[in-house]
């Protein structure tokens, strides 16, 4: 899931930074990517086998997804903001 989030963040940044899509549209793509990974893990037998560990350890699966996606969305926002700022400065100087 970590690699999926990294790849989708890079893909969204690739289209957002030159201005092909705006930030709101890139977040919509991120949202779709979250749906895809949840659906994949739900179907993929080996992924949902480990759900038993997290439940036994007292971690609700829903909360794990929520925290992971929230952290990814915040990290993506920070990276995009810094990148846009850097590009802006490069453009000025």
């Amino acid at each position, binding site marked *: 899931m970590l690699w999926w989030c990294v790849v989708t963040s890079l893909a969204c940044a690739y289209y957002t930074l030159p201005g092909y899509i705006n930030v709101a549209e890139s977040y919509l793509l991120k949202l779709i990517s979250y749906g895809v990974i949840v659906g994949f893990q739900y179907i993929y037998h080996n992924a949902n086998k480990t759900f038993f560990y997290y439940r*036994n*350890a007292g971690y609700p699966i829903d909360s794990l997804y929520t925290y992971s996606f929230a952290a990814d969305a915040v990290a993506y926002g920070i990276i995009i903001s810094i990148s846009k700022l850097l590009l802006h400065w490069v453009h000025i100087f």
Partner: protein
Amino acid sequence: MGTHILKTDSVLLEFDGRKILQDIYIDCRQGEVVGLLGRNGCGKSSLLRIIFGSLKASYKHISINDVPISKGYHNGRVAYLPQHNYLPLNLKISNLAVPMIDPQFWDEFSNHPIYRQYHNQKAAQLSGGELRQLETLMCIYSRADFILLDEPFTHVSPVETEMFKEIIRKCSRVKGIIVTDHQYYNILDLADRMVLITDGATKAIKTPDDLIAHGYVSHLREV
């Protein structure tokens, strides 16, 4: 702290219109081991998964101390050992064990040879048998008040079976444990009382001869 009691009643489970479970009652108190027996496909694993909360039944009534619960794993009340491997393979075993193991049993668990040998390694580095042994131990020593063990003795050597039985007995002093296995003689040896699932319904087993009367075995194995 009083003794908690887990009750499961009125479970209805259907697959493709075929009723698998329909007249179920099973309870378990902290301080006892309940053996759950039944033929292949009778619904033993399904019943345990319904109690744990990972399988949805058409109808069920599950409670702890008469307070209904929707899923056993909520708030870590119930732990479940599935028949398949369940540990995430790419995480270090010590990191996996700490959140799951009951602190009162930590010293005992951490002194176990399998943990001492592999605690700094990832689960993927263990052999199939070692991984199963570790997963079973982690479930038995888990923080939950009630522990559901689905075939803990299958594919396990006799020496390890005796070791698991000893640990289950020890942990059952403070936990309620429901255990199912096709090695019925181990269940007879371990359980304080037994329940048989036949024709989708639970039957209390008073004596081992009841297993013959209900057609579960043709004769009892000498141990």
